[in-house]
């Protein structure tokens, strides 16, 4: 840096532009191997998926697909089963996201306090994240069985002995929501914990001197400084939960009677069991646009709050 200042300015400019040019060429060469698979298996399918939503493509052999403009969407408006699944998807994603935040915040506060067993809890809290979703689903099926431990505990407290939690119309959705919380809590906890540890201790100490109790300090100091992190993790969690598939598919396949039919499951079945690719792509597009609108609205309101 210092020696460029000594040189005449003309040569400097010339030199930096050639360096910039070689640098750019190098950068492109380094990035190409990573870009190719992304273009072929990610960008191209995404564009293709949007186009498919306007066709009547099917999985059946020897049937040509035609452009049908907005027919799929018009049909979708009147598809009550899709909207019912959409409603279930909202109940699922909102419940799981809110519970993840509340439970994750509780655990993060505990882990941030001066307690024993912290290291152990931390590792245990991360385990659900690492396990294959299929294994998690099998695990909870064993818990929710008619002769499983949950019924043993419930009946010990005088409740009914043989609820089939995942097959019962009233309990199936709450039961899978609990599993969703179990799986997603680690990420939320760890992120919030990292945020809590960034809050300067001096703030808490000063407030304590001024006589603020733990509850007040939590609401007046921790929460405001955590707001950007809470906004980020809740929006990510919401999208992840809305897009979630394997867990519920293995536990219930959308049953009983469609009570746990998340929109992802519904769209999957429409595409690969009913073989209506175009119609299913239209569903996918509607879901994506909905999530995008919801997220931009949420983030916009969060940022507006920050500016105040």
């Amino acid at each position: 840096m210092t020696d460029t200042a000594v040189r005449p300015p003309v040569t400097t400019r010339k030199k930096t532009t050639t360096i910039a040019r070689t640098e750019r060429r190098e950068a492109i060469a380094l990035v190409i191997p990573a870009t190719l698979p992304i273009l072929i298996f990610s960008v191209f399918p995404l564009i293709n998926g949007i186009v498919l939503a306007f066709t009547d493509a099917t999985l059946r052999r020897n049937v040509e697909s035609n452009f049908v403009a907005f027919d799929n969407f018009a049909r979708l408006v009147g598809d009550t089963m899709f909207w019912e699944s959409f409603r279930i998807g909202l109940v699922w994603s909102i419940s799981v996201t809110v519970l993840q935040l509340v439970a994750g915040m509780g655990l993060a506060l505990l882990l941030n306090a001066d307690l024993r067993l912290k290291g152990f809890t931390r590792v245990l809290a991360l385990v659900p994240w690492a396990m294959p979703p299929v294994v998690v689903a099998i695990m909870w099926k064993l818990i929710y069985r008619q002769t499983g431990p949950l019924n043993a505990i419930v009946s010990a407290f005088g409740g009914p002995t043989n609820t089939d939690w995942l097959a019962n119309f009233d309990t199936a959705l709450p039961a899978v929501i609990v599993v969703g919380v179990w799986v997603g809590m680690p990420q939320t906890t760890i992120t919030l914990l990292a945020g809590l540890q960034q809050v300067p201790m001096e703030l808490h100490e000063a407030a304590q001197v001024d006589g603020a109790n733990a509850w007040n300090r939590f609401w007046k100091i921790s929460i405001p400084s955590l707001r950007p992190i809470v906004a980020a993790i809740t929006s990510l969690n919401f999208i992840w939960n809305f897009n979630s598939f394997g867990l519920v598919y293995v536990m219930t396949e959308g049953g009983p009677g469609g009570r746990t039919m998340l929109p992802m499951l519904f769209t999957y079945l429409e595409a690969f069991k009913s073989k209506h690719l175009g119609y299913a792509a239209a569903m996918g597009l509607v879901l994506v646009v909905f999530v995008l609108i919801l997220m931009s609205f949420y983030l916009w309101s969060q940022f507006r709050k920050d500016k105040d």
Partner: protein
Amino acid sequence: MGRFTKPGQYLLLLAYLIFLGFPLLWLISAAFKSSAELNSLRVNLIPTDWHLANFPEALAKQGLVRSGLNSTIVAVTTTILVIVVSIPAAYALARFKGKLRTLGVGWILTSQVFPVILIIIPLFIILKNLNLVDSLLGLILVYTTYTMPFALWMLQGYVAAIPKDLEEAGAMDGASRFKVLREIVFPLLMPGIVATAMFAFVSSWNEFFFALVLIQTPDNYTLPITLKMFVGGEGKVALGPLAAGAVMAAIPSLVFFGFMQRKLTGGLLAGAVKG
């Protein structure tokens, strides 16, 4: 927090430990129980009679060995491909500023919230045209693509942590860029590469959705699909061997995860929030 709340805090922590740990312990214990014991309405974590036969039974019947082998091939190849492709790209992402970086980081963050349901349908058609449906190679290519964004994100963080002066010193001594990369950057990057490789392995080992759609014949099933099919025939299926199979399928992920647990804390969000 005051002295009075301490017992309350421990009680709450205990509740969390039970919620997080009990299902796991129950799965492990079920793997060692006979079906008679599994169907008795009792909550005993330690089996009264250790039924070790569940494990060989699971391995013998359900094509578990075959799909375990498939899962290993897919996960190992994906890991190697992801690492080979990500190292140069992560280096470029960390070292060259400007539009390229903005575009790259933007893509990485978007990919975290990618609508797989919209993509899977055309992806299926594309792979079908390439004759890559129901093939492990097709699955490997898809996993490589979808594991890469996060791997890139992890790796570029490690590259950014290597002081630029070291490279400049190397370049001063007349070493070519490639030599600088190979002899200075690469060795320092090793811990980051190991962590990223573990992440890539675990992601592809655990993956379910793409495999469910793209793999069709039992010979090509990966472990999650075999286990799912195992669950499908419920009623007839013996739960002990199912639990044993599930435990075995989770072991590689848990072992790798144990190693990288510390490195992942903070993770994607730490960077995303700081912008």
